[in-house]
């Protein structure tokens, strides 16, 4: 595949970078990224990945746009209220960059469909709002051997970590199991500063681009915590946990688990 004049112009600021160049841009255009959730994190992630010329973006979300989403879910506009988030997001990404193929799945990620969907992509982004789904994505990515960029946000804070199966610590190396339902507040209950979703989401998108281009050092074995109140990042070193029930030597998890789940901050 070769680029058209327009594409060379569109991606010129990428192509100028020695670490990217025409070859790197081609890698991006052939890459497939699966974004789970088209909300606070999924919107900035998918928007920047679309702008970057990622060839295929898969978007999965079962929700429709709510007015309370618009303070942070930047792909959804006022006239989109009531429309499926996947459709709304797809339109904006393709208006920005018609080169991008956007596959939409208007459903929830479950133990039944997760592995089959994730298997079709090169990199996975966690943009979900609840722990059962975060554990499901972590486990499915490990089983399908796909790199995952985990993200989480709450109130004024956010967190990112990149997980490369069998090479770096996974989510379960840190958190063994989801917390008991209802004890950890959700964005819906506790609130979220909208821009924090943008900060964390764009870091996730950066990690995806780096993984595809194989440049720099991925955010593996490091948990990056951001606090908007003080504008500070804190990096916590983590490592593969020998007693991890998913990726440790005596792992006990061999199948995906659908934890019972209350709605988190979906709206």
């Amino acid at each position: 595949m070769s680029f058209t004049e327009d594409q060379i112009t569109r991606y010129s600021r990428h192509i100028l970078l020695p670490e990217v160049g025409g070859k790197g841009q081609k890698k991006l255009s052939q890459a497939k990224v699966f974004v789970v959730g088209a909300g606070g994190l999924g919107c900035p992630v998918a928007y920047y990945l679309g702008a970057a010329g990622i060839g295929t973006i898969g978007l999965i979300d079962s929700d429709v746009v709510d007015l309370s989403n618009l303070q942070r879910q930047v792909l959804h506009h006022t006239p989109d209220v009531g429309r499926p988030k996947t459709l709304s997001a797809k339109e904006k990404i393709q208006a920005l960059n018609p080169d991008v193929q956007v596959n939409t799945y208007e459903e929830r990620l479950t133990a039944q469909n997760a592995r089959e969907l994730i298997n079709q992509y090169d990199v996975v982004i966690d943009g979900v709002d609840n722990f059962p789904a975060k554990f499901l994505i972590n486990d499915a990515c490990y089983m399908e051997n796909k790199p995952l960029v985990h993200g989480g946000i709450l109130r004024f804070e956010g967190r990112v970590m990149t997980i490369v199966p069998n090479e770096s610590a996974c989510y379960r190396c840190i958190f063994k199991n989801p917390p008991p339902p209802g004890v950890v507040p959700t964005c819906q209950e506790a609130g979220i500063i909208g821009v924090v979703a943008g900060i964390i989401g764009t870091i996730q998108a950066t990690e995806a681009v780096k993984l595809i281009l194989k440049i720099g050092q991925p955010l593996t074995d490091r948990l990056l915590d951001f606090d908007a109140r003080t504008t500070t990042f804190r990096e916590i070193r983590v490592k593969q946990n020998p007693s991890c029930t998913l990726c440790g030597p005596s792992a006990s998890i061999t199948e995906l688990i659908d934890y019972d789940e209350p709605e988190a901050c979906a709206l």
Partner: protein
Amino acid sequence: MQLTINGKVENLNVSTVLDVLKTKDIDPQLVAVEVNTQMIDQENLGATALKEDDKLEFLFFMGGGA
């Protein structure tokens, strides 16, 4: 003893990780604890003795995304 907890130096009268959680009124179910970059299993929090200048990280669940 002097400990560094989430990057901040603190002086606490404690001997185990569980003591620290109790002192700070933190529910052990809601936090992952790392001592000197080693994750501590929840069932071992009470058995993990601390020593002067240990570095603790309390990692709280952060579940939002949408």
